[in-house]
């Protein structure tokens, strides 16, 4: 036997619609804490204090690794030779003029550094976040026959020059990021703050 149709179909329809709408709002509201709990917690947000590095002992051609916000920052002091030859591989670079904004304005120059001769680079490959390896030597290396010194990512073979500029034809899309930094004195580098921008 067919059940009798309800006496007020319009009213039924309205009630079903209204109940569903209120139910949907309730579910959306209940989803808020579940989605928000995935965001970085207050403690995680607070953990981003600037890092201080002593660069007085850094010799030309050497690199030190400084930890800032849990990621490695490479601080490289370039040798005289590499400063002079920084533009030798220009035609092989994807963004030689640093047009993509992955550096503060004070590092948008040929050396991508605030102070010529000292590069401060985030060692997070712009491809998938591995730490590229430092290969300062010039000439023939495993992965390149005309290497001008720089960084090579072991994960997927991305190449960067000593200023952190990415080569064309590698998986990484952008130059290495230059984190905000300033030199408190000749020997003390602060990473994580822009300092005096004048």
């Amino acid at each position, binding site marked *: 036997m067919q059940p009798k149709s309800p006496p007020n179909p319009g009213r039924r329809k309205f009630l079903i619609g209204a109940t569903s709408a209120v139910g949907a709002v309730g579910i959306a509201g209940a989803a808020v804490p579940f989605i928000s709990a*995935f*965001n*970085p*917690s207050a403690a*995680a947000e607070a953990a*981003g204090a600037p890092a201080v590095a002593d660069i007085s002992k850094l010799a030309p051609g050497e690199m030190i*690794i400084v*930890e800032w*916000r*849990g*990621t*490695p920052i490479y601080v490289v002091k370039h040798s005289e030779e590499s400063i002079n030859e920084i533009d030798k591989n220009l035609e092989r670079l994807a963004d030689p003029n640093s047009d993509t904004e992955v550096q503060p304005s004070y590092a948008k120059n040929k050396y991508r550094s605030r102070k010529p001769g000292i590069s401060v680079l985030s*060692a997070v490959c*712009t*491809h*998938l*976040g*591995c*730490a*590229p*390896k430092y290969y300062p030597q010039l000439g023939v290396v495993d*992965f390149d026959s005309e290497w001008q010194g720089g960084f090579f*990512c*072991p*994960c*997927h*073979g991305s190449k960067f020059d000593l200023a952190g500029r990415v080569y064309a*034809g*590698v*998986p*990484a*899309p952008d130059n290495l990021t230059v984190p905000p930094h300033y030199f408190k004195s000749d020997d003390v580098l602060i990473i994580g703050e822009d300092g005096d921008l004048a």
Partner: protein
Amino acid sequence: MVTRIMNWFDDRLPLTATIERHLTKYPAPINMNIWYLAGVLLVVVLVIQLASGIWLLMNYEATAEGAFASIQYIMRDVEYGYIIRYMHTTGASAFFALIYLHMFRGMMYGSYQKPRELLWVLGWLTYVLLCALGFTGYVLPWGQMSFWAAQVILSLVGSIPVFGEELLTWIRGDYLISGITLNRLFAFHVVLLPLALIAVVFVHILALHEVGSNNPDGVDVKKFKDEDGVPLDTKPFFPYDVMHDLYAIGVFLIFFVTIMFFYPDGGGYVIEYVNYEAADNLKTPEHIVPSWYYTPFYAMLRAVTFPLFGLSAKFLGFVVMAAGIAIFVALPWLDRSPVKSIKYKGIYSKFFLALFVVSFFVLGYLGSVTSTPGRTLAAQIFTVTYFAYFFLMPFYSKYEKCKPVPDRVSLS
């Protein structure tokens, strides 16, 4: 007495009916061959993983500070802890080896074709869940490879245009891979994903028993039935199949325990050596290699080195890799062949299936070694041939000449 107990249950639960439907009266085709063992063995491995996983959980500590040490504790101090852990790591590799065989069986005999499309989709879903389980589980020991695998794989999300970076931070719960990330992957690995996997496997088996098993000839065994309505070319699943499955399980376990006892590292493939080093967020290992069961897709990721249509190479690589896994789900609708089994399909289907297998293995190799320009080119070529199997299927499966399919199964 037994009858009375069964009657008591049957009045309250469809016990006898369920046993008959799924065991004693489930008609299994008589020509099922060795390829049909993978499904049963997958269920065995699922049980092994659940048991060993629960026992590992009793001693594992899901914190960035304690995770690595707790694995060492399990390996050295917990009685038989090393066996439990090796059981779980060997089980993970066995899981993937078997599901690849199981999927290949389906591709070979057209088991995804009508009326088994939904069965195939559910099976594909278990594969995706397994991939997620493999990844999340891999991170838990918090070794070097755990950490950097998490870094690389989660960074893929960051390549999504516009909101990728925000999404990545939301998923990590931090601005870098940290203990917070570890904790949530842990929750997924031990609760969410296994629950989902068990549920989908259950529905997968229900769907199988609704449409019935395919067979190497791809013929419909339900076409010819005896006077009781039982398909002629079938036998009851219990006891006939269960008995020979038990034998196969025995043989499988011999291989399984041989690896577990004597070669738990599997030559660096089951457990990667780099992961014996604790996670170091400042130092990437020399060679980042995923577990062997992901290497074909990893090779695809690396093969995309050029931007296209204004999208970055990184994002496109992610898309290609995801497509490599996702494309399987489309098979029922890509195959236009009038026949199911490769036995009766034409020469093109055979060629492309062989090409697919070759591509899969070559990509698997390329994904496990470091990249050079030559290898990148090879990966690009074999990525194309891998997808050719799928994307050209609507054409070659439709226009090729098939052999006539017999009415009844053949036992040759």
